[in-house]
């Protein structure tokens, strides 16, 4: 009950922010919510299942390009584009999971990294359609959903909030369901789970597809709300970022990904206003946080204040 109130409270706060925030922060928060949805997806696999992927940009980009190419070249509307994006993510993550889950640990990191690089190069290779590095601006038809113009700040914010709400509540439900508890157990001690009669491989596969599909949904919505589809989003940088956000906010907590994304976004935003060497400030802050709160911000909250925090 307390748990549900906390998470719904955050969503209510974000809804209130829609009416209260000045335009600049209003726009920022919309972006943070979409990126936090991506971080939530990453957290399902990394935080709860204990699998460190270095290739999630592939899933984010699968959603973004599935949506973008569908709208641009197949003439799909925004709704159909979104579904195509999500479906692309499900298929791509299913294929990658089937191969990458034959490995574990460092090998898993490298295999996922390689798959993501292959995806990135594929996007560059088919430059005729994807416009390669340069990317393309999404046509207006792809940015109108249910009669709402998603390029306008108001609907954009609300669409971002809708995506974030779905991802947050889905994550919460998943990690509290028996399936999610088995994932946590796999993270803690996989061999023991296997010897309790659970098919750990099937659980890890399902977790990776769920994570990849959610990441794709975030990628598709990101392209739609901000009107741009580009290869940068498939680059290794976008595989590392969700890892950082989740580590900062607290891996294996439902609120951590949002807190981490928000923290990092404003850390860079504020420090870049002070100096051109803003990454230095960001770096020092990150080092300090890993030294003093190695379990991330929400991980620390759980340790000190509330042990039952999901």
């Amino acid at each position, binding site marked *: 009950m307390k748990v549900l109130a906390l998470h719904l409270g955050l969503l209510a706060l974000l809804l209130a922010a829609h009416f209260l925030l000045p335009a600049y922060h209003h726009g920022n928060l919309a972006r943070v919510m979409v990126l936090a949805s991506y971080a939530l997806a990453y957290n399902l696999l990394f935080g709860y299942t204990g699998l460190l992927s270095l290739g999630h940009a592939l899933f984010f980009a699968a959603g973004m390009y599935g949506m973008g190419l569908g709208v641009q070249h197949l003439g799909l509307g925004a709704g159909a584009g979104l579904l195509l994006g999500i479906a692309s993510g499900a298929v791509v993550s299913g294929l990658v999971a089937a191969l990458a889950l034959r490995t574990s640990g460092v090998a898993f990191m490298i295999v996922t990294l390689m798959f993501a690089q292959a995806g990135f190069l594929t996007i560059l290779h088919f430059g005729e359609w994807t416009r390669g590095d340069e990317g393309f601006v999404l046509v207006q038809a792809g940015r109108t959903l249910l009669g709402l113009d998603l390029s306008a700040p108001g609907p954009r914010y609300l669409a971002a909030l809708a995506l974030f709400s779905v991802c947050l509540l889905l994550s919460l439900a998943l990690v509290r369901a*028996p399936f999610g*508890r*088995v994932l*946590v*157990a796999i993270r*803690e*001690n996989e*061999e*023991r*789970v*296997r*010897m*309790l*009669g*659970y*098919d*750990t491989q099937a659980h890890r596969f399902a977790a990776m597809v769920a994570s990849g599909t959610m990441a794709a949904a975030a990628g598709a919505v990101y392209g739609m709300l901000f009107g741009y589809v580009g290869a940068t989003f498939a680059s290794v940088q976008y595989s590392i970022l969700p890892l950082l956000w989740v580590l900062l906010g607290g891996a294996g907590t439902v609120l951590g990904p949002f807190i981490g994304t928000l923290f990092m976004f404003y850390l860079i935003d504020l420090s870049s206003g002070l100096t051109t060497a803003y990454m230095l400030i960001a770096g020092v802050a990150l080092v300090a946080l890993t030294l003093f709160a190695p379990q991330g911000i929400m991980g620390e909250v759980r340790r000190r204040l509330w042990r039952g925090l999901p």
Partner: protein
Amino acid sequence: MSLLSVRGLTRDFDGLRAVDGVDFDLTPGEVRALIGPNGAGKTTLVGMIAGRIVPSSGRVTFDGRDITRLPAHRRMRLGMAYTFQITSIFAGLSVSENVTLAARRRVRGAGLAGAVTQALTRVGLEGRADQVAGDLAYGHQRLLEIAMGLVQRPRLLILDEPTQGLSDGEIAGFQDLVRDLAGEVTILLIEHNMAVVMALAHRVTVMAAGHILAEGTPAEIHANRAVQAAYLGGTDAADR
């Protein structure tokens, strides 16, 4: 009719034959102890029975069904439970959640909480259900491990050195528990503590160097010269 039957089971590790053509049968309801010096192949044999180790050759039959090719989790679903030699619990989760995970394959919904409480009561941990498992004393972690085995209501319960590191009082409690279970469930017990073996086992199987050296009642094994030789390093060596 035996519950578990093993024929010609062999396992090589890089030229070392850890288990060599072992035949082995368990009758339903018995408590069987598996003993032998270190390196005799006990854990490897049990690992092959439970599906943790793939045999080089041989066959394992459980309840009339050939399970040699089944992965471990499928064997557990057929009614085996396995407790680890080195305590292997979910240290970050609560005691009750540890047992819940073990129980959930068998019971869902309303009966779950009852089954968990019952298993914890049986090993005497009912007062510690909400503690984090990693914070328990070592002896209590061993008992939790056993509760996780019990709650699965297995037909075959494999206990790998369950009394290792337990105090005398805890060992006495463990013996009461196993006596209580005898008849209800078939138990295969790897054990170094001879007092425990003599007190609990209906039959004892002795392994040495990958082979089965002897099998019989505790009294027979106690009197067996070959067994004494295996433990004491051989009479020949002692004579010289």
